[in-house]
């Protein structure tokens, strides 16, 4: 069992997120996180899928993703150098007495404080999963009021890109392709 990071380029069509999500449920894939967003091209979205599994299962997921007509390309980022990042917003309980300690922790983790109130701070922290885990463990004694994480996103390093050449968007279909996610 290991962490597998898959990146998928998908056509920005209605229902594409439902199709991918349904695939996970239908074939019993256990997904740690899924994040979706736009790319440099309007017609396409990019999904980053993280799963804890053996490599045979990750391989099965890649093949099944390819079966979806809307999925253009899938990459297993586990097998090549890549950068991965995740962001968390953490609301930490901090009064005037212990605020300094929290701020010190933030400095060490290069986290940014983006909101301050009398009882709490909102901290923005970006990094690999382990860093986020370590930070939340250290601030937990102060009290985590609320927390949200984006899920992981990833890009291959250097010249490694997801293939999208040969992709020509359909003219009339583009009209119907309004923010479908």
């Amino acid at each position, binding site marked *: 069992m290991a962490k597998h990071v898959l990146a998928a380029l*998908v056509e920005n069509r209605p*229902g594409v997120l439902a199709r991918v999500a349904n695939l996970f449920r*239908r074939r019993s894939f256990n997904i740690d996180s899924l994040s979706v967003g736009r790319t440099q091209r309007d017609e396409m979205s990019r999904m980053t899928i993280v799963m804890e599994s053996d490599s045979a299962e990750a391989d099965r997921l890649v*093949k099944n993703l390819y079966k979806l*007509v809307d999925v253009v390309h899938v990459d297993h980022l586990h097998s090549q150098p890549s950068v991965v990042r995740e962001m968390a917003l953490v609301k930490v309980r901090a009064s005037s007495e212990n605020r300094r300690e929290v701020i010190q922790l933030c400095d060490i983790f290069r986290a940014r404080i983006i909101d301050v109130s009398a009882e709490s701070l909102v901290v923005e922290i970006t990094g690999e999963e382990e860093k986020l885990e370590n930070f939340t463990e250290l601030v937990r004694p102060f009290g985590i009021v609320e927390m949200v994480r984006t899920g992981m996103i990833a890009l291959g390093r250097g010249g490694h890109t997801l293939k999208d050449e040969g992709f020509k968007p*359909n003219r*009339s*279909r583009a*009209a*119907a392709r309004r923010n479908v996610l």
Partner: protein
Amino acid sequence: MSDETTATDRANEEAGTSTDAVVLTGAEIVCECLLREGVDIVFGYPGGAILPTYDALTKYPQLHHVLTRHEQGASHMADGYARATGKVGVAMATSGPGATNLVTGIATAMMDSSPIVCITGQVPTGAIGSDAFQETDVTGITLPITKHNYLVTSIEELPEVMREAFHIARTGRPGPVLVDIPKDVQIQEAEFVYPAEPIELPGYSPPRAARARQVDAALELIRKSKRPIILAGHGISMAGANRELAQLAEKAQIPIALTLLGKGAISEHHPLCLGMMGMHGGAEVNHAIQQADLLIALGMRFDDRVTGNLATYARDSRKIHVDIDPSEINKNVNVDVGIVGDLGEVLRQLLDRVERRPNEAWFDRIAEWRADSELREIVRPADAAQHPAVPEGKLLGAQVIRDLFEFTDGGAITVTDVGQHQMWEAQYYHHERPHSLITSGGLGTMGFGLPAAIGAKMSRPDQEVWAIVGDGGFQMTMMELATAVQEQVNVHIAIINNGFLGMVRQWQEFFYEERYNQTPMVNPDFCKLAEAYGIPTVRVTERGQIEEAVNASRAQTAGPTLIDFVVEKEEIVFPMVPAGADLDDMIRRPTPEEFEQQRRERATAAKAPEPQTPESETPESEAPAAAAALGSRFGV
């Protein structure tokens, strides 16, 4: 499937397509697209949200609409139509309940990779999501059971969607595609331009030839093998690779086992064809698979019904798997060489370089297993010495199928329902040609038989078509008798009527201590029922009556006919691999000798009501305990 562009071009010519744009309604565009895709028949049922399209159909007499009696019948008919020819079948229904009634047929087509396009009406775009009258999220419902589906949100995209739908349905691994069209899109008008250029779908490119390295690896495994066997599935006939399969088997001298849907991949009279594998496959076939040192799986998917216990499945064999769907490779069974490609192309690649193998010792072993199977056979009418297990005067379902095979010269397209009769068909009706057995293999859909047979006959009016159904499944869709009569479809219906849900009863007998809960059925008089529809009928209760009844049915060349075969109530399909058991751990019909011995033992036990001796508890030789316990019963 192969000749897509030519079919479309031909349709374009026939439809007189020109590049001049004309303004049409969405409904008319649907009809124009159907014509251009070569569609001649639409199976469907009208309703509110699809009414504009039904109105437009009146302007297109080239599109013959068949009114079914239930939308499930429409999707099964489209499926049967597709399976008999390889052409795309089309079903049409309204929104809400019309669309949901299609669902069983869509799932059936999905599991068996059958190319159909379903067109459903939807409430107007403005009303979507408001729980309007007869609104249902049919694209959501059918998401996991279609190859792809569409909700058309503007008339501009309608021609493209229609073209894509047919392209996706028929190419690669075929499957069902659903197009959901809101009523207002059907009413709107737009310039109609049919996309001339071939479709470019960036996320969809069915594979063609195999990689050379893969072919080398496969050839190497074949060269080294001593006990090879080919497992031929549905993919052979779908790829039209039947000739290549026969050539490969002949050139390399490799025997062929068939899956249920693989029947027709090669003539079952071919000396290298062993017959069907799996749960109710031939014992010699299953033994051969278990003892093989190389499995060459072609266009099949290692379904649990053909593998039995995966942990012990063909343990000593290397495995080559060729399939057009990459996700099938290493899904159920891990293989040594996985080849993704079109079977015709891949087999031609292999054929060029495969060598003749001396496999005589292997064939001798298979012949031994086969001889043992023949001892246990009960149905050959020519056999002077009948199996003592067949009681005097009883009509067995297996005999009906065996005789139907003989009296139709083995040349009919047979369409089955699901259950015991389906397995007897597979065992005793030996098919020669591709697309001549149409059956719901993957989903096992009861009620499939009659409507699929109607669809098959309508796509192949030149062929003799028999619907072989059980009394249970027949009653799930028997309302389609009216469709057959209205359309004067010359389909011959054979009901194998045992008054039971026979296969379920068989499981209850084997695994639930003969508690026949909810399997006995009180049936109507099927002959009287058919007569109410004006259908000629005959009832058969003895084997001697079969020939005359079949001949009388065949003599009818217009409209449906029906034969009610009243057969033995508690017959068993032998052999049987219990679910999850090892593939060669079969419950067998006893040989005549074993049968007599068991009868003597039973008689002795009856005289001396002592507790059983350890000897009599010991199961017969290799036969599993269940078989010994059952051996006392006939045919059965």
